[in-house]
């Protein structure tokens, strides 16, 4: 899983050209991953302003608040779920995202439902 981080300043600080470049890079990367048969899914997330945080307390009462769960400078801006040979291949793809220049991209393995007895 490639997790793209952003913050409002870095996004606001982009020129129109840089924003276009960003979206073109993602289109190219998505196309390439699709053609290689590696892409499982990918999406960009709407601005954090649209976030709703849901929690359910002990007596099953649901409460929903506007805004993110944790106040942080950075937020999750999008993700790619990619089936790679190994972590290094995933890191190579993460490094090709312009977002890695602006803030950072996290690479984390997903859990597998299968395993080996020991």
């Amino acid at each position: 899983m490639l997790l793209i981080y952003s913050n409002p300043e870095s996004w606001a600080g982009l020129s129109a050209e840089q924003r276009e470049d960003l979206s073109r890079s993602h289109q190219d990367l998505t196309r390439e991953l699709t053609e290689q048969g590696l892409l499982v899914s990918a999406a960009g997330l709407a601005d954090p302003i649209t976030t709703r945080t849901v929690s359910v307390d002990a007596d099953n009462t649901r409460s929903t608040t506007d805004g993110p769960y944790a106040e942080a400078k950075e937020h999750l801006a999008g993700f790619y779920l990619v089936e790679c040979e190994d972590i290094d291949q995933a890191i190579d793809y993460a490094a090709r995202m312009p977002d890695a220049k602006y803030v950072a991209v996290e690479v984390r393995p997903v859990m597998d439902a299968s395993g080996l007895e020991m």
Partner: protein
Amino acid sequence: MNHDFELLLREQTPQVLSALVRHYGHFDLAEEAVQEALLAASQQWPGEGVPDNPRGWLIRVGSRRLTDLLRSESARRRREENAALTASPEEFVAPSPEIDDPGGRDDTLTLLFLCCHPSLSPASQIALTLRAVGGLTTAQIAAGFLVPEATMAQRISRAKRSIKQAGSSFEMPPEAERDARMGAVLHVLYLIFNEGYTASSGDDLHSAELTTEAIRLVRGVRRLLPDDGEVAGLLALMLLTDARRPARTAADGSLIPLEEQDRLKWNRPAIVEGEHLVSDALARTQLGPYQVQAAIAAVHGTAERAEDTDWRQIVALYQVLEQISDNPMVRLNHAVAVAMAVGPKEGLALLEPLESDGRMKDHHRLEAVKAHLLEMSGDLDGARASYLLAARRTTSVPERNYLQSRAERITTS
């Protein structure tokens, strides 16, 4: 469609595909045409009965479909007006009404070499092998590997393009390359087996199908190469490993370690067959890593109770295996065997060099083995910490649950 019927069709796949590729070339389009012929058969035969010559029927339908594909392909190319890619005249040759039946010839090996071509990534080799040689549909393969069908379809068509670009022809690789290429084929079959040999919660049919498919494919290779010790060794290893499948997971999907498995649930006929295969191979063929791994699995398989396991023999076999295929996983298993045969301190000593091995130092299995040996040696705090660290490192849910439960077992004892 019933299972026997599907198998009958799938067994024809490599022969039908080879016949088309021999006659027309165009491996990529031929493969597509064969899939369509199989689909047509699965729709027509159940109602109209199986034809007298099923292979001939499939070849005829496949040829018709392939010539259609070639025509539309060359038309498309002409539209693209790419001089470098203009259709060659032979693409307009009408199909001969009957392609010579290859008779006794079996091109399955040639096809396997092509699908396991070195220009492809392991994931692509696996997907192409399952489709072109195994006759599985893209949907079945995608389900087996838990990826979307569209992703798998892309992977397969890309693999076919890569083979085309590499300029591979449909013939046996030269003698000099054959050993290395055979190694790649066996490795791909081994990977397919491993992918299927997984413990998922509940009854995961898909993974079971992959192990069955891997065993079926290796049996096919063994029929063609009855004197190859490593083919026999790989088949034995699969049979002996798969024999444990009914005993390795509990009803809730949790993993049961080898020493705690109910050995009455092991598949006895598979163990007997595997043991015969490996004994025979060891006695009369050149030694290789699959045979030694199968021999180790046979020592486990023939121990009636966990405490009857001949660990000294297993240690000796790991020493042999380290001589012929040095990899850190082998050393890790060797350390376990030494701990069981001699004692945990001696096993832990063998783990030390792995702690500085870049490939292993952060690997959850190293930490899990360390935990196990620390527990054997009585260092319960150290064991608990190692189990928990291993649990955090693994990316497998059942392994994580198992490692956590081992840590909890120590806490509450």
